[in-house]
């Protein structure tokens, strides 16, 4: 069971991710960052609660929606703003901008495959690497219900199952692959696939990050102790569009309003108050602190210099 301190940490990190995203949207409004972004509102419960089951030395392959998993892994906010601003302070030294390839090898953040699903294979490789090198590192790989339908998943899951790799797959099922509903595009349930590859699958409600954390801790421990992979299917929601500015004409109003009632941040706040594990003052302080932290990082990141043409071939060949 997630202890009260961890619950508050989860809430703090979700709020930090939300504040970070709001600040990014302001930068986009101000034309300081390109508008290509896949908002993560709604999936913080899944991303934060799963990632917080990892150690700093564990590996993370995040997905393209939101930045909450990356923030939960401890990547400094200045670097993330720098990535979107496309300047030297970014984790990729100004190569990113827009839908970025954040990387932080020291914190196990191994980057992103722009073609979604590609990360599943790299995650399987990273997990195999830990096994070969006989470390106890665990790899966690996030992807959406859309990317779960790529063939890359089959090849990665099969290898992970065959060799009992220390790997946790997190399917963030928000019901939508861009504009196509999951029930239209998918045969069977994602969680049931795990058994076919010889490892356990667990479905969990992403609105309740504390329950998600329990599930993730169990999966990570199993992986670390040689018990092999787990697939966690988190039922989550996409509160905003696929991309910033997506009019979402393909979604019914009723479905959108139901989704809106399943915000994990709103839920966790109420739950913490109701259980007496946090007071209104504590929660407000956490929220104010997040905004302060984000503002400070934003200011610092805005001072970064833009890259110039001389870097264009710098990182091509060693």
């Amino acid at each position, binding site marked *: 069971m997630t202890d009260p301190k961890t619950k508050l940490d989860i809430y703090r990190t979700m709020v930090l991710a939300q504040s970070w995203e709001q600040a990014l949207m302001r930068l986009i409004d101000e034309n300081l960052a390109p508008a290509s972004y896949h908002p993560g509102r709604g999936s913080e419960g899944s991303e934060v609660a799963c990632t917080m089951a990892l150690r700093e030395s564990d590996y993370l392959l995040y997905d393209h929606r939101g930045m909450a998993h990356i923030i939960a892994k401890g990547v400094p906010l200045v670097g993330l703003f720098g990535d979107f601003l496309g300047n030297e302070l970014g984790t990729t030294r100004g190569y990113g901008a827009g839908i970025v390839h954040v990387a932080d090898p020291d914190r196990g953040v*191994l980057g992103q*495959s722009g073609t979604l699903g590609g990360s599943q*294979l*790299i995650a*399987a490789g990273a997990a195999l690497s830990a096994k070969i*090198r006989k470390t106890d590192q665990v790899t966690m790989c996030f992807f959406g219900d859309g990317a779960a339908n790529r063939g890359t998943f089959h090849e990665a899951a099969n*290898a992970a199952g065959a060799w009992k790799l220390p790997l946790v797959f997190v399917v963030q099922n928000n019901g939508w692959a861009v504009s196509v509903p999951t029930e239209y595009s998918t045969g069977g349930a994602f969680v049931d696939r795990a058994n076919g590859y010889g490892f356990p699958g667990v479905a969990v409600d992403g609105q309740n990050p504390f329950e998600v954390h329990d599930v993730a801790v169990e999966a990570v421990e199993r992986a670390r102790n040689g018990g092999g992979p787990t697939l966690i299917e988190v039922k989550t929601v996409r509160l905003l569009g696929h991309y910033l500015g997506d009019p979402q004409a393909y979604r019914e109003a009723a479905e959108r309003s139901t989704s809106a009632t399943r915000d994990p941040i709103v839920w966790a706040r109420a739950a913490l108050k109701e259980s007496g594990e946090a007071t209104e003052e504590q929660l407000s302080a956490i929220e104010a602190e997040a905004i302060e932290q984000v503002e400070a990082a934003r200011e610092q990141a805005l001072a970064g210099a833009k890259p110039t043409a001389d870097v264009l071939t710098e990182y091509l060949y060693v």
Partner: protein
Amino acid sequence: MTASSGARTITYSRAITEALDEEMARDERVVVLGEDVGRMGGIFGATPGLYEKYGADRVIDTPISEMFIVGGAVGLAITGLRPVAELQFADFIVNAADETLSKMSKWRYMHGGQFRVPMVLRMPEGATGGGGAEHSLCPEALMLSYPGAHIVVPSTPADAKGLLKAAIRDDNPVGFFEHKALYATRGAVPDDPDFVVPIGKADIKREGTDVTVIAWGRAVHWALAAADLAATDGTSVEVLDTRGLRPLDTDAIFASIEKTGRVVIAQEAPRTGGGASEISAVIAENVIDLLEGPIKRIGAMDVPIPQNPALEALVMPTPADIHLAVKELVG
């Protein structure tokens, strides 16, 4: 044979095995993975004995999962290992195209230099009689339009060993094309365990003064045979082995053309869109004023490789084709 005498005659496939063995012994981060590379020793016999010597953790028989073989190797490479992955046939590069052309080749660049991807992707290539349209290709040029990885194609046992060792020690990803028809060929290979052939340096396989024939991989041997034929006409052919397509040793190419003033480029891949086309363009852009005649390209017919070996032979370029091009150039 003593170290001072310096060389033994071995096959091209033995050269590959020795390179892998020596580098695995030298550096425990080197691991081998692919279909049938372990217990079987490779479908073309290029990895025998490694599984017994280094164990299942370092010589990994993978599922038939090409995307995993290459994508997984990228995951190994960015977390401290130095994988040598094998696609059983070079044709399978398209089964793992995104993993090869984007993940392997671009991971470092896309992430602002935060990673190195020290991996080698071995790809047995070429038509050897009956493989058909999907097991006979030399798809080296597919990698050309995707910057980020070296493209190496050895033609002799010495080059195979020296270039593979260099590729394993290199911190860049390397596409390493081995010609299946060359595995059984023999040649002298230096004994020195630190014998490496630098990547991106061309080799003059035969000196000549009248015509330069540029080739790599199996086509080097066709070029040498064509040079023999031309010699009977009194024409002196220089055979320049590029040993791959990237980096391309343009200095060596230009120097040879400066000497001969005539150039034929021979490849096994179909004529259109191959390495020869790119090399032609580089020559035309830079040293066209040194040429006394047109640049000649020799390659396979622009058709899928027929499964019937008799038809395959009709599609493949031959030493006679190269010889004819040489004759046309010298008039």
